[in-house]
């Protein structure tokens, strides 16, 4: 500890600037991490507000509140905001905060680019959200942007495309920074196979990002030229092909869903051992499983398109490849369970969220396996069954891992313990309500309710009402979460540097909060 304090004092001239300029000009990984996390929280609440509008309209059959075209804007922008503004920046924020510390480095390798990649985001989202005030409203063709429908959009269309370009640039720069940092900034002795799994999963995620974000950029640029420069990439009447867009989009889109979940695997692989007081079971198989998932993610994209009329051979290939993903994903779940097995478990809030993650992510995995069966997918496709599936893996999966990470590292970041009772209340309120929200959607989908509809036949009324009530409760629980975070930042019981009894890793060797510059002298790696 003493050494760390010395390091801090050695660098007095590098203390943060005062006031708002600190945040605008910062090149410090912790400051940028904080910015990312707060931005993600803001977007999470904003996207959540849109979800509330959706659930309000779906509370009962008939159209009570919004016009169908506004409803479509809500579903579209809700998804874009949650994916590109909520989950992705939250994970980049965690990476910024934790990666340099976890590998024993002083900061991210490319600090100025780091600043830029964050500060692009507020502008990108301001542009995306400004489309609500334009003629024709916000994009309403679904976040998947399928032509020809998306080309019917109003004046907001080019703004959305440009916003996506900017988000992509931000993500790619963030990914480059992660890779360069991991490859160059590790403390001596920190070999690749000694890195914490959170570092590993982010390392692989960063490669996925670099591989697929340009593909999305290409696809949306083709949409732009189709709309404004009379190209016909996706217009059958001009020799183009609307299905081509779907292939390109999902070549991006499927790796994208692993971009959203791999860092979550890393978070959970850090938390479960801590609170089981036992080393992670099967570390190397976790690394190999993550790599296999990343590889497979590139060859399964057309399972999102089973109903477009692929040839039989294509459908068989994508069905088999998709089913295969269950194997490495299963390995990860089995490893987490084995880590808990014969441990000495306590149930602090991060552990509750991590266990919630394992259980509910697995439920989402099961429905994923069901969706992989192509003939059955002909029934499930584009129904609420799919909505239930991806919300289980993304809300109770990705978002739960972000919550877990927040409670786990918040004492480290702020130097204050959060209120454990409130944290547990937050967990239980969220978990009960999120299941009331999403579980009935399985039934709705199986019973025949398509997704993305603002109104429905009366036999779907009961479950929609349940789902909406769960949704409102889940929404309120997250306002409560904001309060807990705010309260912890403002004060609380001082946290020790170890914070958690069973925690292991370099971040716990630093004070809470850690010095502004972490490891100017590399730590010794056991």
């Amino acid at each position, binding site marked *: 500890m003493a050494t760390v304090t010395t390091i801090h004092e050695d660098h007095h001239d590098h203390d943060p600037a005062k006031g708002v300029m600190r945040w605008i000009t910062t090149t410090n990984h912790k400051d940028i991490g904080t910015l990312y996390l707060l931005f993600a929280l803001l977007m999470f609440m904003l996207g959540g507000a849109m979800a509330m509008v959706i659930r309000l309209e779906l509370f009962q*059959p*008939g159209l*009570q509140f*919004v016009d*169908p075209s506004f409803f479509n804007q809500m579903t579209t922008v809700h998804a874009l905001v949650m994916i590109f503004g909520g989950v992705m920046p939250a994970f980049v924020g965690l990476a910024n905060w934790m990666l340099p510390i976890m590998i024993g480095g002083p900061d991210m390798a490319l600090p100025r680019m780091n600043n830029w990649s964050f500060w692009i985001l507020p502008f990108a989202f301001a542009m995306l959200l400004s489309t609500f005030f334009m*003629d*024709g409203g916000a994009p*309403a063709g679904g976040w998947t942007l*399928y032509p020809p*429908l998306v080309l*019917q*959009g*109003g004046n907001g269309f080019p703004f959305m495309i440009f916003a996506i370009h900017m988000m992509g640039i931000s993500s790619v720069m963030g990914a480059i920074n992660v890779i360069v940092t991991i490859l160059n900034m590790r403390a001596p002795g920190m070999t690749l196979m000694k890195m914490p799994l959170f570092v590993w999963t982010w390392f692989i995620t960063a490669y996925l990002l670099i591989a697929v974000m340009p593909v999305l950029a290409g696809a949306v640029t083709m949409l732009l030229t189709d709309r404004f420069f009379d190209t016909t990439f996706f217009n*059958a*009447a001009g020799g183009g*092909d609307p*299905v081509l867009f779907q292939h390109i989009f999902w070549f991006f889109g499927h790796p994208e869903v692993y971009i959203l979940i791999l860092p979550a695997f890393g978070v959970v692989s850090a938390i479960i051992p801590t609170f089981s*007081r*036992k*080393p992670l*079971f*099967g570390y190397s198989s976790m690394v190999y499983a993550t790599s296999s998932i990343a590889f497979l993610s590139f060859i399964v994209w057309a399972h999102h398109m089973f*109903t477009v*009329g692929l040839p039989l051979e294509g459908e068989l290939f994508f*069905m088999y490849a998709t*089913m295969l993903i269950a*194997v490495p994903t299963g*390995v990860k*779940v*089995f490893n987490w*369970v*084995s880590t*808990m097995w*014969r441990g*000495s*478990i306590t149930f602090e809030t991060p552990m509750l969220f991590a266990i919630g993650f394992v*259980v509910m992510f*697995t*439920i989402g995995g*099961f429905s994923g*396996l*069901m969706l992989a*069966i*192509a*003939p*059955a997918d*002909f*029934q499930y*496709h584009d129904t609420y069954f799919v909505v239930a599936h991806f919300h289980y893996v993304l809300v109770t999966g990705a978002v739960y891992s972000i919550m877990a990470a927040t409670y786990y590292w918040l004492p480290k970041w702020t130097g204050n313990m959060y209120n454990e009772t409130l944290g547990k209340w937050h967990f239980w309120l969220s978990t009960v309500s999120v299941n009331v929200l999403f579980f009935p959607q399985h*039934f709705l989908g*199986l*019973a025949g309710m*398509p*997704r*993305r509809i603002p*109104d429905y*036949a009366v036999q*779907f009324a*009961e*479950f929609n009402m349940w789902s909406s009530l769960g949704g409102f409760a889940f929404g309120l629980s997250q306002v409560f979460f904001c309060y807990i975070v705010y309260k912890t930042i403002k004060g609380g019981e001082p946290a020790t540097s170890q914070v958690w009894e069973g925690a292991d890793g370099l971040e716990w060797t630093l004070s809470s909060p850690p010095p502004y510059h972490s490891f100017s002298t590399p730590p010794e790696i056991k």
Partner: protein
Amino acid sequence: MDKLKQFFAFSTLLVCLPGAAYAEYALNLPFGVTETSQAVYGLHMKILWVCVAIACIVFGAMIWSMVFHRKSQGAVAKQFHESLLAELLWTIVPIIILVIMAIPATKVLIDMHDASEADMSIKVTGYQWKWRYQYIDEDIDFFSSLDAASNAARQVGSNIDPATVDHYLLNVDHPLVIPVGKKVRFLLTASDVIHSWWVPEFGWKKDAIPGYINEAWAKVDTVGTYRGQCAELCGRDHGFMPIVVEVKSAEDYAAWVQAQKLEAVAAKQIVAETLDPKELKHKGKKIYRANCAVCHQAKGEGVPGIFPAITGSALVTGDLSQHISVVMNGKFGTAMAAFKDQLSDLELAAVITYQRNSLGNKVGDTAQPADIAALR
């Protein structure tokens, strides 16, 4: 004795409950009325039970350790962190399960792809927001849209309780009619954006894509009425383009085909006489409400940025033949559909006359069915 009574009452309740619940709302995939849908249902249940079994093992182990391996119970952590045997086991066993699942799935998939030797073919075309059915060998061709009762009830603030509407949002003006026990081949395409044709009881959905003709088939074994919806987001009224299929016995089907043909002949006999502007406007208003108002709005004001206004439009108040041409052929690269196949000469003449002389426009001329016929 009381205890015993209670027990019986409780057990009876338990037995009856699931039945009662199923009667009101479905929890599961429909078993369906085709061999395909029943095979799909079988696959669905098989994979569901596989998942339930794995869930029992995984969650069981988790719960076990959460109960018995907790620190408050005095558990001391073991420090093992590797087992090659376990890792091999939980890699290989899932692969075997997956192979066992893949075999029947492959069989069903191959069968679903085989649309050969069909007894009849129907071309299904998706429009924003209605379906068109063309019977390939029968010269039957019609559009099928949301029925008037549902359409009235689904307007924002209509104050009509959907529960009072017959098959709210799942009813159409002209249902598709097919014969029982015949293999019907569906050829699916779309005229504007991508739609998806789905009747859950048949066991599949298939996208209707502009520029593509997708193939699917159904052989329905039970006479009855089956309902579904468009399943691919296709714009504002995506939630309002249902599908209704009436499956009729061979005799009833033959009678229906005969009736359709007589109707078609009658429709063609409407003499191309010059009609009174008032009559045209009156007819046109109804057609405008049903076909145009969804985008251009009931009062013709349009939606800025996406749907141009009819009121004061240069096109509508300008040259008649230009106006007719856009309504008939649509406008390339916009949401404006081509209506020449959707509406008859009389209907087109009526709606065009209405647009020119109503909704705040006063051009003063009329479009006559003959004007339309001349431009066909």
